[in-house]
Every structure is written in structure tokens, then in C-alpha cells.
């Protein structure tokens, strides 16, 4: 055998070895990923199944992965007397819309100023914002400011203001806008466009991907917020959806009373456990439905953030 033949032979064995290793690796990979995916998904199946199970069966058999006795009674109750639920939805939708639109506009405007390379003080202002992520006064002074000095308790502003700005979003948006070629801004200036006009006419249209991503992050934050309601809302008319669910999980009796007040007839065999699960589905339903369409924007956002971190 010539030397080159021997080498060829070795390469062949190597290649065959690589092939078996590759298969083994792939097998492990498929199994691990499948297990992780099942673990991630099965709680959702559990909730859906539990919400569709007859209450009397839950009381005896407990929650099951598949409904052993199918029933829509929990949803029936929820939709029979939906006043509170509709009100909670209305609060959440209003807060999400107002907060996202305002927050997005202000975030973009701020990020644009910080991305302007000819703006001398941009580093100073960046640090001014950034410092608030390093150090803060803690919960108490902020809470007292909101409640005792700004009197925002039981107002919709208390649900909107705290999440209007986020330094991380400003940074992500800024790093996106920094990629807009300076020449474009310069030529617009030569044409006599002012800074605000450049922002609205040029930068905003060019930043659509970043705007979509940050907008969705903001909207998700507002939709899922319950914390600021826990701190600032005691008026039932202002309860957002997640906080309503929180209340319901902790205090179903209180909720039943509220339902009775709003016209529901108290029934002794009213479902409780399946009702909690049905309410859980109602609270995250829109997100589960929108999820396949919005997911990629979040991936995009994380990737933009990861580059400039």
C-alpha cells in the first residue's frame, strides 16, 4: 500500500467513526430536547385539562392530564356573569395600549437622541439613565412617593407609569438606531430638516424591526403585570386581569361574593378548582393565541441585545 492509500484508509475510518458519534450525539440531543419541550408544555396541558374537567370529579380524583369527565361548567360560570372579567380585561387592554404606545414613542425618542453621534452630551445622558439600574432607593421611598406625594393610588397612571421606561429597552433601541448611516441624517439636515423631523420621517421608519420588538416587550410586560396592582390598586374597578386572577386564586370566596353582588346566584355546588384553572386560561389565553406570531420578534430583540449587550 502506498502512503497516500494508507492516509485515505485512515481518513475513511475516521469518517466512519465521526458518523457513529454524530448519530449517538443526535440521539441524545433529540431525547434531551424532547424531554425539555414536554416539561415546558405539559403544565399548560394540565391547566387546560383541569379547566375542562367536572368539579365533582376533580374533588375525588384530583387534577388530571386528560379530562376524565369533560365539562364546560367552569367556563359557563365565568361567561354567565362576566362583568368583573370584562372589566379586568378592559383595564388590562387600556393599560397595555396606552402604556405600550406612549412608552414606545418615548423610548424611541430618547434612544434617538442618545444615538446621535454629533450630540456632545450623549455619554453623560446615557450614564444618567444607566446609573438608575446600578443603584436605587429601594421599594419604600418609591412607594411613598407614588402614594403619599403623587397620590397615584387607585389610578390607572399607577399601572402605566412604573413601566413606561426601561433602560434596557433604551439601550437596545439605541444600538439599533446607531446602525443608521450618518450620511442619511447629514443629507436630511442639508435639506433643512430639523432634529425632530429627522426622527419622525427618517429614523422611525428605518427602525421598524426594533420598534416592533420593543413594542412587544412593553406590551407583554403590561399584559402580565400584577405587581403594580398589588401595590397600588384596591378599587375592584381598576383590577387588571392578572391581579384579578391572583385575587381569585387566593380568595375565591371573596370573588364569589363579588359575583353574587353582580347578579350571580350563589350555588353551593359552584365549581372552585376548575374555575381557578378556567380563569388562568382566560388570563393568558390571548398570549397563547398570539404566541406563534409574536415569538420571532422576541428572538430578534434578544439577538439585537446580545450583540451590544
Amino acid at each position, binding site marked *: 500500500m502506498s502512503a497516500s492509500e494508507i492516509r485515505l484508509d485512515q481518513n475513511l475510518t*475516521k469518517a466512519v467513526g465521526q458518523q457513529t*458519534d*454524530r448519530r449517538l*450525539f*443526535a440521539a*441524545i*440531543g*433529540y431525547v*434531551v*430536547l424532547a424531554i*425539555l*419541550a414536554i*416539561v*415546558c*408544555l405539559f*403544565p399548560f396541558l394540565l*391547566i387546560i385539562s*383541569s379547566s375542562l374537567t367536572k368539579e365533582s370529579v376533580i374533588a375525588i*380524583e*384530583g*387534577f388530571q392530564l386528560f379530562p376524565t369527565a369533560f365539562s364546560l361548567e367552569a367556563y359557563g360560570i365565568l361567561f354567565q356573569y362576566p362583568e368583573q372579567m370584562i372589566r379586568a380585561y378592559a383595564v388590562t387592554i387600556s393599560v397595555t395600549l396606552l402604556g405600550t404606545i406612549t412608552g414606545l414613542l*418615548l423610548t424611541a*425618542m*430618547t434612544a434617538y*437622541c442618545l444615538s446621535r453621534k454629533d450630540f456632545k452630551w450623549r455619554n453623560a*445622558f446615557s450614564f*444618567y*439613565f444607566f446609573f*438608575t439600574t*446600578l*443603584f*436605587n*432607593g*429601594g*421599594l*419604600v*421611598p*418609591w412607594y*411613598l*412617593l407614588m402614594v403619599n406625594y403623587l397620590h397615584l393610588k387607585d389610578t390607572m397612571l399607577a399601572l402605566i*407609569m412604573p413601566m413606561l*421606561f426601561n433602560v434596557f429597552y433604551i439601550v437596545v433601541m439605541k444600538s439599533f438606531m446607531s446602525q443608521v448611516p450618518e450620511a442619511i441624517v447629514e443629507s436630511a439636515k442639508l435639506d433643512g430638516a430639523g*432634529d*425632530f423631523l429627522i426622527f419622525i420621517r427618517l429614523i422611525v421608519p428605518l427602525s421598524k424591526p426594533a420598534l416592533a420588538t420593543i413594542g412587544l416587550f412593553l406590551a407583554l410586560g403590561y*399584559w*402580565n403585570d*400584577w405587581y403594580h396592582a398589588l401595590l397600588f390598586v384596591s378599587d375592584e374597578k381598576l383590577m387588571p386581569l392578572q*391581579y384579578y386572577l391572583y385575587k381569585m*386564586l*387566593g380568595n375565591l370566596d371573596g370573588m364569589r361574593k363579588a359575583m353574587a353582588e353582580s347578579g350571580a346566584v350563589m350555588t353551593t355546588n359552584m365549581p372552585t*378548582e376548575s374555575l*381557578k384553572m378556567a380563569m*388562568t386560561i382566560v*388570563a393568558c389565553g390571548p398570549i397563547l393565541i398570539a404566541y406563534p406570531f409574536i415569538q420571532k420578534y*422576541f*428572538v430578534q430583540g*434578544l*439577538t439585537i441585545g*446580545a450583540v451590544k*449587550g
Partner: protein
Amino acid sequence: MNRRGFWGDVVRYRIILLMLAPAVLYYLLFAYVPMGGIILAFKHYDYAGGVFGSPWNGLDNIRFFFESGDAWRVTRNTVLYNAAFIVVNNALQIMAAIFLFEVGGKWFRKLMQSALFLPYFISWVVVGSIAYNLLNYNIGTVNVWLKGMGFEPVDIYNTPSYWPFILVLIAAWKVLGYGTVMYLAAITGIDTEMYEAAEIDGANIFQRVMKVTLPNLYPTIIILVLLAIGNIFRGDFGMFYNLVGNNGVLFAATDVIDTFVFRSLLMTNEIGMSAAVGAYQSVLGFVTILLVNYAVRRHDKDRALF
């Protein structure tokens, strides 16, 4: 006329400054003004006096916090939980990202990534509801399964020793997809020539992962871990509060600084003390971040925060 100096700049940048004004005022009001409120840590708060009129009481608040034994318990829990989250979350996320990159076709990858990312999108309240479904003594799924296999049911909500495991698992579950996407982005950025070179040198896929992928991920891992360490004194209030709530039986194993401050402020109304604990947390966190940044700067100057 071409004015110079500070006021000249103010005039030149007037539109930009106006556009920045909302954010500047916002952070002034909601971040910088409350920083001044740290003085409450050294005051005995009364409602009549408010922030400024309440009498000073020196270090009484912080002394009370330490002498009650709460300081050690909540600080220990906060740090240990965060340390466990950092190790478990990053290990799982890196593993998932490597497999997602190496295994399966486009369709499979998309499906897996969507499944892993889903828990990130729901609120902690919904997670609390899921935990209730799983862990309830009478009807919880875990106990249904235990009973089905002939075991005694366990009273999870009254047994503190289970909770470190439960909380670490649920935290990992919630952020698995988020971290996986970040690491996947980093892996995708690795130069493919390196893989090809390794393959020509006869490396099998295990060696390639260990010798090419992981070393190339180290900068990302180090940065993400260090950033997480910078937040090691910040407990995830949403998680602890929705999973444990005000269930005092579990506090020895589950109470973190953030839940403690919340309860002191809104349930027991010890305002001065809770302000002191909040300040203690802020200062510890600030010092940690400075140290971490110093470490990052030494490791890789471009990655330093400031």
C-alpha cells in the same frame, strides 16, 4: 452669530434636549428623588411627619433588622437561591442551545425553540396557578400521581425542605427558552471554519462541542454569569410571592430580601425598618456590581459595563 460655550451648545441641541426631557424628568422623579428617600432608613417613620418630618433614630432600624435574625435568613436565602439559579439555569440553557444548534432539521428546531420559550411569556400569577395545580395536597397532580403509584401524598405547602428544589426547578423552567435563545445566538456567531478545521483534524462531535463550541462560548458565559452575580442580592419578588405568598410555614426556606421588605412595608407597616432593609440591599447590590464590573474590565475591557 455663532455662540460658543455651554449656552451655545444648549441652543444648538435645543430640539434634542427637548426630546430627551421626558425621559430625564421621568428618571429624576422616579429614580433619583427616591434615592434621597434613603434617609428614611435612619428615621422613625410616622404618618404625620412623612419623609421629612419624621424623627431621626440613627441606626435603630438596621440594628433591629440584624438583631431579629431576619437579616441573616433573608440575605442567605437571596444569595443561595440566586447562586443556584445561575448554575442550573446557565447549564441547562447552554446544553439546550448546543443541541438545538447541532440536532434536527429546521422544522424540529423551530418547534423545540417555541416549546422552550413559551413559559417566558406567562405571568408569575399564572405560574402560581400552575404550581397550585401541581402541588396541592388533596388534588394536586403530583400527589395524584404519588397516590396512583401507591405512595403517601406529601404536604408540600407545609414542608419547607422541598421548596429549594421546587423554586430552582420552576425558575429554570420559566427562563429556559430566554437563555437558550441568547446562547443560540452566540453559537450561531461562531466562525464555521473552526468547525470544519476540527472535523478535518478528526475530532468527533463530542470533541468538537468540548473543544470548539464551549471555549467559544466562554466570553458570553462569563459575561452573563457576572451580570447575574451583580444582581445576586435582588430576589425575584414575582416568583417568590406567587409561589409562596404569605405562607409563613415556608419562610425559613423561602423568604428573600424583596419579600421581606414588601411584607414589612405593607403588612406589618414597619416603614422605617423596611426602608433600612431596602437601603441595605441597594448598597450591597451597588458594591457587588462595582466589583463585578472591575472583574469584567480585567477580563475583557470591551465588555465592561462602564
